[in-house]
């Protein structure tokens, strides 16, 4: 196995593009190194991107936030402006692993695992986040939900690296929330998860909404019918009931070691409802 730690994105892309064997990007390493140690992955090339300029930066501009590919979970939580604007995104990312893992793990890594249960991703999708991709043919920007394809697979092509995540600028009275179900309190993977992103008008009526579910289908899914149930409401009981029903209806889960179809379908609605209530309060709704 070869280990490379290039100082520019361009050389990282070149290294990955030229490698004939199995090549992986290393940022936090909380997935890659574990898989290598366990003997599940035997890469020919590992490209460490942590020496590339800007990968640890969170920058705020007129268009929103740009979060570098190697920013660890703990740094997201320590950025007051980001937490204020996107509390759901940060709380999702901060649920990954444990305190120790938070010091290393990244949202981009979480996204590139392609897991439908990734805690760092649903709130990004609910927030209309995009990723900036560098590759042999230059740069492109795509919505986050276009990255995962199926469990463990993503749409990136050979040689491509996600260099940053872009979160848009917030309109007034906006906020988000993320909830996941685990049987324990920590150190676990979502059995079901829900992210809700809301924008209210000045009177507390939902103007815009986006509802996203994790671990209930082969990929993380957006549920437009659930968003529709909320828009125009003040999150009354009937709207929440419709939201929950829409979420349960959108589930295409499997029975596995972490939960049953029946359980996931029911709990998806419960979590979406609870997340909506949290997001609503955060957005200034009463």
């Amino acid at each position: 196995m070869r280990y490379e730690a290039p100082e520019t994105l361009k050389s990282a892309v070149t290294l990955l593009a030229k490698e004939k064997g199995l090549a992986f990007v290393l940022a936090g390493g909380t997935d890659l190194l574990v898989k290598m140690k366990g003997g599940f992955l035997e890469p020919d090339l590992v490209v460490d991107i942590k020496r590339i300029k800007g990968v640890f930066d969170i920058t705020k501009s007129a268009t929103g936030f740009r979060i570098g590919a190697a920013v660890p979970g703990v740094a997201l939580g320590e950025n007051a402006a980001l937490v204020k604007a996107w509390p759901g995104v940060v709380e999702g990312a901060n649920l990954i692993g444990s305190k120790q893992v938070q010091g290393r793990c990244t949202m981009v890594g979480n996204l590139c695992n392609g897991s439908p249960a990734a805690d760092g991703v649903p709130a990004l999708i609910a927030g209309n986040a995009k990723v900036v991709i560098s590759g042999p043919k230059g740069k492109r920007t795509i919505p986050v939900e276009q990255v995962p394809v199926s469990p463990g697979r993503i749409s990136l092509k050979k040689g491509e690296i996600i260099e940053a995540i872009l979160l848009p600028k917030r309109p007034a009275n906006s906020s988000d929330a993320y909830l996941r179900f685990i049987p324990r309190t920590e150190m676990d993977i979502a059995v079901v998860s829900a992210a809700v992103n809301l924008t209210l008008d000045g009177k507390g009526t939902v103007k815009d909404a986006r509802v996203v579910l994790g671990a209930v289908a082969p990929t993380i899914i957006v549920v437009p019918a659930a968003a529709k149930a909320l828009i125009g409401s003040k999150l009354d009981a009937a709207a929440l009931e419709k939201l929950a029903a829409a979420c349960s209806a959108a589930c295409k889960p499997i029975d596995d070691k972490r939960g049953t179809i029946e359980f996931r379908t029911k709990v998806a609605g419960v979590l979406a409802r609870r997340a909506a209530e949290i997001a609503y309060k955060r957005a200034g709704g009463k």
Partner: protein
Amino acid sequence: MPLDTHFTNQKFKQVGTRPLRPDGVDKVTGRAKYGADYNAPGQLIALVLRSPHAHARIKKIDTSKAEKLAGVKAIITSADLPDLTAGDRGMRDMLENCMARKKVLYDGHAVAAVAAIDQTTARKALKLIQVDYEILPHVTDVDEALKPSAPVIHNDIFTEGVEPTPTKPSNNNKRASFGHGDIEQGFRDADIIVEHTYKTEQTHQGYIEPHACVANVSPDGQGELWVCTQGHFVYRNQCAALLGMDISKLRVTASEIGGGFGGKTHIWTEPLALALSRKANRPVKLTMSREEVFRCSGPTSSTSIDMKIGAKRDGTITAAHGVLRYHGGAFPATWAEFGAMTAFACYDLKNVKSESIEVIVNRPKTAAYRAPSAPMAAFAVESAVDELAKKIGMDPVELRIKNAAKQGTQSSYGPVYGPIGIGATLEAAKNHAHMKAPLGKNQGRGMACGFWFNFGGQTCCDINVTPDGTVTVAVGTIDVGGSRASIGLMAAEELGISYDNVRVVIADTSSLGHNDMTDGSRGTFSTGLATIAAARNAIKVLCARAAKMWDIPEDAVVWEDGHAKPAGTNAGNFPPLSIKEIAAAAGNTGGPIAGHNELVADGAGVSFATHICDIEVDPETGRSTVKRYTVIQDAGKAVHPTYVEGQYQGGAAQGIGWALNEEYIYGKDGRLQNAGFLDYRIPVCSDLPFIDTMILEIPNPNHPYGVRGVGETSIVPPLAAVANAMSNAVGIRLTHIPMSPPRVLKAISARKH
């Protein structure tokens, strides 16, 4: 001098205090050496090739390609481990479990092992070994395995304990029955009868340290093994037998142990490491991965239990009947028998019958897990007793108090009890503040009792007084829960010296006589007995030396507060001689001063506990949180109360995990789906409340200080205590452990509809 083991009710100076454990600083600073911390010069790394199939015939194993790989120094299959067990079924099964012979019997069963210069090479070599399997039908469920349509795993197993012995082989290796009275009459006398079938899923002990060893066999036939184990003498004896070595030629040194709970009571990969070392003529290190620990060490049984209990309206239990089916994994075992023996042990019953049915399935060979088999039986009995109380309209504690066993009760498994603590733990529970605390919304409270036999066994101990008068104690029982501190306290107590002047070590197998392993909560009880006796023998020597120094008769010297004193004024007027002074003079009075003892520790006092649990359930998700938990248990005498409390808390924590989330999940293909801590969910710290403890001391009459074992009983009540709390919180009786959120939500939803 035979040891007088009668309880003496003496006043203690050291016993009952809470000094630091001698292994504490090393453990928290990382100095302590665990199994995988041993390394030998020139050692090879071994890996094991394991079956991906639950049940298959091995048609051919081709190791030729792997052997040609540079860096591979030895490869073994069952051909390198000839059967030397001479008709001993237990040892033969152990051999076959260490390495599959004609068939693989479970997912993860070893088929070959490689020793290479490093891990990477060993991994490559494993991939080059070709095994041709003929896949056979498999069965992993305890009830399915008993059906006539189930594939028969061993064609030489004919159910023991039934008349006449069956002529057809089956997956039921043994049946047994315990009890007394007439249950038919008892049920006719009952006003209320509760009857259910209960199920518990398979759990693993979940020790944090995987099995690890370094084996080193020389061409002259001598060998050494450094290993993480609960019983290095037992490992030595078993390995020597399987490898055809003289026991004396294999020296086993035990590492510190990062948890065992019964899972490290017999051998798994150690004979493979020894056989590889013998073949390669190099030291071989073999460490199990976490996945291997789950797939192929020794978890406990999954069970299916029919329980029927009847009572009068006044709460008197008139009859109790249990049929307990436990699997032993892929080999014959007698775990159901333990379940049947312990099931009704808490109660004074006129009519009782408990029947055991042992089952063989395509899962790893079951090993002991802390009070093995008792928690599942207690889950069934204590759930039924709770339901009985509800139906009668009686307080569940009162119902249990009314039926509790006491001194003189004939136990359901045979013996008549001496002084026991079940009544006292129940009274303490009844009066505990926890019982009276208010409950919040969606919360429920439950309680349950538990029993464990406790064990004594073969033990020996060496005490040596060093030239400066401090003392070393060498014992042969592995310290799994602070026993070195407790043994140090007992030695200090007898010798009348400070705990700080006693150093306790675990001796290797060539330095002491055979010791049974640390199981059955025997460590502090049995090694304590040997230590007390050895200390008394050392005191005799110390007195004799003082007599020599004073030139008076030996019997004119007494030992008090760490000093030799003349027995009376007639003996002479000498100032007391300290242990330090006597030790300093030893070179001139007869040489080194020591005390030795070896014994079979009889009379381990039985142990009882009562637990109280508060739980909160989210009715929309089935998720539960234990809010408060109290353990009340009889310790006989708590030698080191902190470590007694630690045992109480540890058992409760494991039991809560078992009750709520832990389970082996097998796919239809017979493969284990969750061989890791991510999906085999033991509780993490934040999942548990602080576990409150209360130590009761009802002395064991068979120990001079009154000590009983304390390590295991604490895991017996939690399954039932949590289930009773859960049932009270959601208003539904849950009969399937673990009560994971999907199961609880399903039960809640079923009630709504």
